[in-house]
């Protein structure tokens, strides 16, 4: 087993790489949409409280665990967790720290390739003169592989392969490659974001038109930032805020452990962790809140934003809005926006490659390049179905069924499961006394002692609530009504979006039983097949990685016995 393969070039490089890992598409798309869907100003306070009580403690735990494992020559979560708990099963919880990254990178690279493609289309002026409907239709057409918007056959696949190749090449350069990408990508992202945020902040009522005479960017900002303290008691808002923490900080993935495992025992983790965490918050709260929502409200009105806020706005709406700024500025704005999303994406997807590489280098003596290219190969194998397999609904919209399954099970559920397991392991199995000492070792800041108790009690409890919240989503996501009903003996009706109902495909089955149109019936039956296929592929990935961990564990034991004899 190798003990040390790679090292960070500088402390700033490490923090930018960590910040780049955390800053992703969610900072610019998911955060403002979550804020809009959860009452605007109501959302910010629970969100910041969750950052303090769950986000920062989890960052500290993961940084400390990574450095602790790295000291013992472990650079991926299976054996990092194994060194912290006596029970053998911990290493299999650690499988999540590799599995999640491969599964998420498989579809994340596809989104990244959209941003790259849209940079190209912004430069050549594809969106010039298009109305809003045409821009939305363009995106739909892009996802249908048979149609080409550039003349390149299967261009969505081509851009996907270019993106994957770029990721793999940078990863094959090791931590130095990742660090260099972060040192270029993060500052550029900040500059692009600042330019667009300035525009969002100063747009005012300039975007009002005959079609949307009341449109005003101020309305968007008012909605996001008017504090509504009364709604703080709404459990839905808290669950949404806690959920956003996972996405924004990239906790529960295993990437932070991996990056941190290349530190030495006397290197700081306490300051590095909060510095990278706050950098992410700056991008999200300061820049992320000033771009999509105010610009969209400025041209289309707040009512339109409330009805249509979603991930698709980035590709289906923004190019149209930029086009209102004239032919030259719109090209720059498009390059800035999609370039920003590309840099946010690639610095995150690069991080997703490192746990697998660390594992294969540690346990199977892989060279760095071989580890990177096997990662690329796996992403191609598991990711191509997310590109190639989709359904076209009767109304012509593309339903990315395969992609959505990866996003739900790997990009949502796995994060919560792993974060809960690691919080329990760190605070209760490894022990908060040892964990706290590990965090403070070499620390360049003093951490208030109350965080020790937050890590011991509050963070695990919050994670349990988030997990149960996803498992038992009540009908209509109406928690107040469901809890009240439970106390009145009315039972608990699960929503189709609850984890339990998702497993059984109850939502699709209900639609199927209500459908009468043969085309719709066929569509839904195929959907069930695709959903199950995606889950089978994910399960096979998890089992495969677990098997590799088991073999590595046996090899370690054998090697230990040979050394003893």
């Amino acid at each position: 087993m190798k003990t040390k393969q790679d090292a960070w070039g500088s402390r700033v490089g490490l923090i930018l790489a960590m910040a780049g890992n955390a800053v992703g598409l969610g900072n610019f798309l998911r955060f403002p949409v979550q804020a809009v869907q959860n009452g605007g100003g109501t959302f910010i306070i629970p969100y910041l409280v969750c950052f303090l009580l769950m986000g920062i403690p989890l960052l500290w735990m993961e940084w400390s665990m990574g450095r602790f494992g790295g000291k013992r020559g472990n650079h991926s979560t299976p054996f990092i967790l194994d060194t912290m708990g006596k029970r053998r099963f911990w290493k299999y919880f650690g499988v999540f720290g590799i599995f999640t990254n491969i599964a998420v990178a498989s579809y994340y690279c596809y989104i990244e390739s959209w941003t790259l493609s849209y940079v190209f289309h912004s430069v050549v002026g594809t969106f010039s003169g298009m109305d809003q409907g045409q821009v939305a239709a363009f995106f739909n057409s892009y996802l249908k592989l048979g149609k080409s918007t550039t003349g390149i056959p299967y261009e969505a696949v081509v851009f996907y392969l270019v993106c994957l190749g770029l990721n793999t090449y940078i990863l094959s350069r090791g931590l130095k490659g990742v660090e260099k990408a972060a040192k270029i990508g993060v500052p550029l992202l900040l500059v692009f974001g600042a330019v667009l945020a300035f525009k969002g902040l100063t747009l005012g009522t300039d975007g009002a038109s005959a079609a949307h005479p009341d449109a005003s960017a101020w309305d968007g900002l008012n909605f996001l930032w008017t504090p509504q303290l009364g709604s703080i008691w709404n459990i839905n808002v808290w669950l949404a805020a806690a959920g956003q923490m996972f996405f924004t900080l990239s906790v529960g993935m295993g990437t932070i452990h991996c990056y941190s495992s290349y530190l030495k025992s006397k290197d700081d983790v306490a300051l590095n962790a909060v510095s990278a965490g706050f950098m992410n918050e700056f991008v999200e709260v300061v820049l992320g809140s000033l771009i999509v929502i105010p610009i969209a409200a400025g041209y289309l009105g707040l009512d339109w934003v409330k009805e249509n806020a979603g991930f698709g706005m980035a590709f289906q709406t923004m190019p149209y809005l930029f086009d209102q700024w004239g032919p030259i500025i719109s090209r720059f704005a498009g390059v800035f926006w999609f370039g920003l999303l590309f840099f946010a994406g690639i610095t995150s997807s690069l991080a997703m490659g490192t746990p697998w590489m660390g594992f294969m280098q540690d346990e199977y003596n892989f060279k760095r390049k071989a580890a990177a290219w096997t990662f690329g190969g796996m992403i191609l194998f598991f990711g191509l179905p997310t590109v190639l397999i989709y359904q076209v609904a009767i109304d012509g919209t593309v339903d990315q069924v395969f992609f959505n399954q990866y996003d739900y099970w790997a990009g949502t559920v796995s994060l919560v499961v792993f974060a809960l397991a690691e919080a329990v392991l760190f605070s209760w199995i490894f022990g908060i006394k040892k964990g706290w000492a590990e965090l403070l070792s070499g620390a360049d800041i003093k951490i208030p002692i109350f965080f020790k108790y937050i890590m011991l009690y509050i963070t695990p409890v919050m994670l349990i609530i988030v997990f149960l919240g996803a498992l038992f989503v009540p009908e209509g996501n109406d928690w107040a009504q469901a809890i009240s009903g439970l106390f009145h003996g009315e039972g608990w009706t699960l929503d189709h979006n609850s984890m339990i109902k998702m497993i059984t495909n109850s939502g699709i089955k209900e639609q199927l039983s209500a459908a009468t149109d043969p085309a719709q019936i066929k569509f839904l039956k195929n959907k069930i097949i695709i959903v199950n296929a995606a889950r089978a592929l994910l399960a096979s990935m998890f089992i495969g990685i677990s098997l590799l961990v088991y073999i590595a564990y046996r090899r370690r034991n054998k090697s230990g016995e040979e050394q003893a004899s």
Partner: protein
Amino acid sequence: MNSSALIFMVIIQATVTIFTAMFFRKVLKTPKQPEPDSYTENDDES
């Protein structure tokens, strides 16, 4: 913008910005640890 939204936005964004700058400044100002540390930037060329 209405005044409560403006005040709330300025307070939250200023707080986040100040903490971000403060922590990053501390990273830059903290003296490097004596060798051997984890960072190759200050390693001896030999």
